[in-house]
């Protein structure tokens, strides 16, 4: 079974190559069918491997097994979290391809295969990163998925905003990736190994952590946190998500950003968790401080957006902050909670983006104020959007609520308040959009002079050939299925327990307490949903009460859209990481 592991990467790569080679002659419908079939086949393969991932599989590609404990080969690790994320990425890829079925503008003649081919390459990069067992291949797959993501973000090359967002995304993420490669080179210099588990053992043999370990930790984490969009590495994300085509947004927000958080977990768990790595107190300080900051800034910026896609993008920033806090707590229970939260969030966020895409293609705008009351006719989409907003806030029994509840119990204390507040604010912002756009509630937002630093979302080009008259069945079926998936994460009996088992088996072990619903968890979910509804009601009925205060303006100005600023923030973030991680290394 383990010999099938490389196929998770190879199948989509081959599919993409086929589409590029044959795409010139294929009619569009054939190219899109092939794309869907290859993505679905990979998803089935990942699920099959996932079902057999206990005990975790280790595959040395090409039979280059270690000799005398030293390795030079490429190693893939097929455990629960890795294959689970590969399966999630594959399923979302199928959803994105189905959603974009006959959706884009007619592709230029003789290029029918290019969009599905790019999406398959993206899938291969994400799956490869999820199952990579050595750091250098993690870097290569990280770059593969990033490069394809830049191309997909700027796919509509005729659009000024799209190419600008893609370039920002490209420069910042690539800089992070090069920092990560420097860290990997330092680890190789110390241990002579690239496989993560071997590096971990090599560091432990060498004794306590020193400056080199700290530098490597900071550099590797810089790359991963840029991908995970942690503050202050997050600036690229709203710019890229606001301009990417909707099916691409579903993949970026649903799973790619979460892969950065997964990378942090994986690298810490396999490389830095031993006595020669970074002390636990340091990692906890780094992730809890940066995660909380990310969650708060993401939530505040989310609330003050009127560009619906940017609003959803900031909500992804906020939730990634919550994921990082949960990972940083370093308890098996929090890991279980985050795994469930990521699964639920992927379905919900992708569904919300899918609904926003329908608005864009029908009305040619994603500006909350301009759309006021116009989408009353779209009853079905309204229901989906409302359900998605409530699920985002943690309404039981959705998977988001279960994951949030399990994590909240694990973190305890003031961090529980953070979880409730952040999910309430982000869900409240989405509910506010739903109330105004789909129900036309409250007074019509007047044409207030918009602040200089605001992207309104007016004047966006629809992504379809014509403005949609009737919404195609695929475009509503996909979000409905995604929400059903998020619901299934929460209600399927035994699912949560299975996730807990898989995560704990892959992690450092410890007591397995299967994740399950508890009365306080359900209560906290209901509280955050009620708070979200309250905030949305207040914002719609009394807009002046929750208008943007003066202190939010500097926060807005930080998001300047300037590549140089974002690069400076990235360097500053690297220094901040070093400062936060320093005390424990000094004490060791």
């Amino acid at each position: 079974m383990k010999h099938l592991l490389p196929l998770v990467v190879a199948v989509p790569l081959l599919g993409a190559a086929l589409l590029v080679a044959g795409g010139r002659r294929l009619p569009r419908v054939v190219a899109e069918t092939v794309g869907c079939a290859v993505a679905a086949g990979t998803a089935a393969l990942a699920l099959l491997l996932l079902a057999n991932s206990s005990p975790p599989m280790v595959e040395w590609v090409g039979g280059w097994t270690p000799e005398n404990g030293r390795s030079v080969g490429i190693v893939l690790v097929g455990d629960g979290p890795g294959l689970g994320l590969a399966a999630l990425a594959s399923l979302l890829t199928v959803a994105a391809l189905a959603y974009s079925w006959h959706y884009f503008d007619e592709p230029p003649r003789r290029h029918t295969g290019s969009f599905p081919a790019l999406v398959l390459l993206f899938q291969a990069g994400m799956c490869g990163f999820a199952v990579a067992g050595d750091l250098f291949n993690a870097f290569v797959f990280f770059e593969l998925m990033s490069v394809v993501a830049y191309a997909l973000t700027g796919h509509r090359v005729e659009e000024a905003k799209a190419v600008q967002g893609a370039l920002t995304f490209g420069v910042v993420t690539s800089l992070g990736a090069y920092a990560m490669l420097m860290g990997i080179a330092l680890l190789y210099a110390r241990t002579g190994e690239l496989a993560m588990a071997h590096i971990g053992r090599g560091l432990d043999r060498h004794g306590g952590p020193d400056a080199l370990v700290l530098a490597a930790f900071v550099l590797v984490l810089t790359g991963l946190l840029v991908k995970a969009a942690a503050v202050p590495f997050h600036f690229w994300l709203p710019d890229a998500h606001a301009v990417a085509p909707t099916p691409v947004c579903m993949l970026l927000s649903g799973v790619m950003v979460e892969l950065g958080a997964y990378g942090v977990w994986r690298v810490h768990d396999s490389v830095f968790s031993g006595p020669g790595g970074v002390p636990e107190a340091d990692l906890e300080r780094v992730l809890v401080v940066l995660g909380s900051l990310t969650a708060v800034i993401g939530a505040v910026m989310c609330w003050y957006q009127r560009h619906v896609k940017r609003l959803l993008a900031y909500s992804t920033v906020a939730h990634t902050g919550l994921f990082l806090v949960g990972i940083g707590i370093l308890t098996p229970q929090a890991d279980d909670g985050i795994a469930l939260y990521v699964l639920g969030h992927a379905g919900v966020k992708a569904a919300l983006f899918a609904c926003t895409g329908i608005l864009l293609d029908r009305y040619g705008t994603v500006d909350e104020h301009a759309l006021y009351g116009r989408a009353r006719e779209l009853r079905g989409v309204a229901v989906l959007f409302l359900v998605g907003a409530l699920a985002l806030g943690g309404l039981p029994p959705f998977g988001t609520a279960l994951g949030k509840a399990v994590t909240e119990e694990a973190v305890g204390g003031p961090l529980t308040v953070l979880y409730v507040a952040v999910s309430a604010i982000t869900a409240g912002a989405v509910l506010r959009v739903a109330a105004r756009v789909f129900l036309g509630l409250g007074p019509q937002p007047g044409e207030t002079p918009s602040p200089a630093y605001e992207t309104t979302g007016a004047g966006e080009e629809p992504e379809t050939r014509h403005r949609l008259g009737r919404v195609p069945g695929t475009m509503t079926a996909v979000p409905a299925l995604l929400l059903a998936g998020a619901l299934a994460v929460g209600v399927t009996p035994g699912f949560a327990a299975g996730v807990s088992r898989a995560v704990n088996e892959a992690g450092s072990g410890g007591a397995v307490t299967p994740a399950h619903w508890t009365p306080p968890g359900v209560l906290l979910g209901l509280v955050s949903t009620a708070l979200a509804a309250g905030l949305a009601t207040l914002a719609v009925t009394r807009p002046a009460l929750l208008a943007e205060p003066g202190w939010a303006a500097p926060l807005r100005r930080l998001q300047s859209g300037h590549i140089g600023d974002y690069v400076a923030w990235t360097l500053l973030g690297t220094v901040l990481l070093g400062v936060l991680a320093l005390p424990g290394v000094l004490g060791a």
Partner: protein
Amino acid sequence: MSVLPYLVAVWIFLVGAHGLATSRNLIHAVGCLAVCQSGTYVLLLAVGYREGATAPVYADLEPGSRPVVDPVVQALALTDVVVGATVTALLLALVMQIAKRHGTVDPDELSELRG
């Protein structure tokens, strides 16, 4: 073992990042990103260097007769070069498109995405 190559690698990375942060031209910025990446090449090759060793090519070399430098990092550096070429090509294509759509390649004049 000299520490000089490591300092050079760090300096190249930082000077590239400084160029990126202060760039007034996007083509220059993409070039700076490539400079940052050159820092990783230098670091990788410095890690694999052995005093008095030769190239790890066994065509005209008896295995074990002479020390050779680490071939793994050279493979990594080669892969890195390929990755870098892809990234640079794609980003330059995006800059061209920005020049066409915005009529400028000065990042200070791109102001559509903010807040």
